[in-house]
């Protein structure tokens, strides 16, 4: 199976050039579904593929399958704004996301696949003194944890992001910002393809067009999953289907602390380099994050559509809100045309933080509730979730992110918004 895709190097590129088209092989092999596996991972998105990859690589579990309802990378791993950062306030979150950022830094080498990690800097902007105090608090929390954070005054912001200085007078002027220099972007599709290729090379079966419809149990233990291609036996089951975690709860007869909401993103026609970093502004005057892709398109995202939905049809008024906030920051982009916009289904939890825990049975695991933070978490989530599944013990990084925290009161409420998924 590892013959499917040769190891890439400068030398292999040269050989590919000489060999012509015949050199390039499918990145992962068309595996055939077996009757049973040690671990069945449900969902071939970033988290599912990364979990399978780490199960095979770090824990030597070879009989692993990833079952996917549609196609590899069809869901949120291909529907985000590609931003990676670890500028969180709460220790439980910033240590986890920092672990992820450190893995992003070396992921291209680990996977032998260029995921185009671009540490262009993530700049959170403040338009008032109150917001500056909030950013300073967050930056101090990060620095105490050894994470890079620089509080910039107005001249500092204008020096780092001169495109903001070109904007002229503003109704709400920029007071300063919090910069995380190591934050940036990663090519999202390459992440799905790279993990799929690396997992497949380690013997993981990636099965597309195979929808899981139920869990079979015997004597209180899960024995496998019912799929559209028949029953598949499983020693352990991992659900990594963020966006549809609520449906997994239904499958097991559980009400879970998640609700599915839509989040939109949009991209303009390509232009010459304008935006050199990731610019973020959060309420009260709007919410937007803006980057420029390597192709030149201005990529924007904002906040939730505002009500539960599985339709993946974004609301026009939210698109207007997001674009309006982006134009307020960068009036230069006002005349650009939007080429594409799309919506992804987000698991929103009751505290805005993710959940990795056992689900009902000892051998069923849930990796979900990622809210806005799913893409940037993929490498750390895969490694931590695989350790949990392989050893039966949650590693320290994710111990606080259990399901029981809602009942015990140990919520990880980053924004302090209360138990309202729509406000996280």
């Amino acid at each position: 199976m590892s013959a499917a895709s040769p190891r890439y190097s400068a030398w292999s590129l040269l050989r590919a050039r000489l060999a012509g088209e015949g050199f390039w092989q499918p990145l992962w092999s068309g595996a055939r579904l077996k009757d049973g596996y040690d671990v069945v991972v449900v969902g071939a998105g970033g988290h599912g593929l990364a979990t399978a990859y780490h199960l095979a690589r770090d824990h030597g579990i070879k009989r692993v399958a990833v079952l996917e309802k549609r196609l590899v990378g069809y869901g949120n791993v291909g529907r985000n704004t590609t931003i990676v950062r670890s500028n969180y306030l709460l220790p439980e979150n910033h240590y986890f996301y920092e672990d992820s950022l450190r893995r992003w830094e070396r992921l291209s080498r680990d996977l032998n696949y260029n995921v185009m990690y671009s540490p262009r800097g993530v700049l959170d902007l403040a338009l008032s003194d109150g917001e500056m105090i909030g950013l300073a608090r967050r930056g101090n929390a990060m620095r105490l944890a050894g994470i890079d954070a620089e509080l910039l005054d107005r001249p500092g912001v204008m020096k780092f992001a001169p495109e903001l200085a070109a904007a002229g007078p503003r109704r709400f002027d920029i007071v300063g910002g919090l910069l995380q220099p190591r934050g940036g972007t990663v090519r999202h599709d390459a992440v799905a393809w790279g993990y799929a290729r690396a997992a497949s090379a380690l013997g993981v079966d990636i099965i597309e067009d195979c929808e899981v419809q139920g869990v079979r149990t015997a004597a209180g233990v899960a024995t496998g999953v019912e799929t559209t291609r028949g029953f598949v036996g499983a020693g352990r089951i991992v659900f990594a289907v963020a966006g549809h975690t609520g449906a997994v709860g239904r499958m097991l007869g559980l009400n879970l602390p998640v609700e599915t909401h839509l989040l939109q993103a949009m991209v303009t026609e390509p232009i010459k380099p304008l935006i050199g970093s990731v610019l973020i502004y959060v309420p009260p005057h709007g919410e937007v994050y803006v980057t420029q892709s390597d192709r030149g398109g201005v990529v924007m995202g904002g906040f939730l559509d505002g009500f539960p939905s599985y339709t993946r049809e974004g609301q026009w008024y939210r698109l207007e809100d997001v674009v309006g906030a982006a134009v307020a920051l960068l009036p230069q982009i006002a005349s650009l045309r939007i080429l594409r916009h799309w919506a992804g289904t987000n698991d929103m939890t009751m505290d805005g933080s993710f959940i990795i825990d056992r689900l009902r049975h000892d051998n069923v695991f849930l990796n979900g509730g990622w809210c806005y933070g799913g893409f940037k978490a993929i490498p750390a989530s895969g490694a931590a979730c695989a350790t949990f599944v392989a050893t039966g013990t949650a590693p320290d990084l994710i111990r606080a992110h259990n399901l029981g925290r809602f009942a015990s009161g140990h919520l990880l409420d980053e924004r302090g918004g209360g138990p309202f998924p729509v406000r996280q």
Partner: protein
Amino acid sequence: MNRLVCPFCGARELEEFLFHKTLPEAGASEYSAVYERTNRLDDSLEHWQHVHGCRAWLEVRRNPSSGDVLEIRMIGGGRN
């Protein structure tokens, strides 16, 4: 889904309405009512408010997979 039919004002843009909360099942515990959701793919009972209209609080039953509104009425069902 881009419009809701307010029982008082008629069909209005969705933008005029604010979603508040998904309602728990009858008999749910206090913990469950606050922290858990039934997450049915085809049926969701919710509280909305016509904030940029008559400000009435509405009980809306929707299909979150198709976006269809199945039922909409004023909370409590009475006159006000």
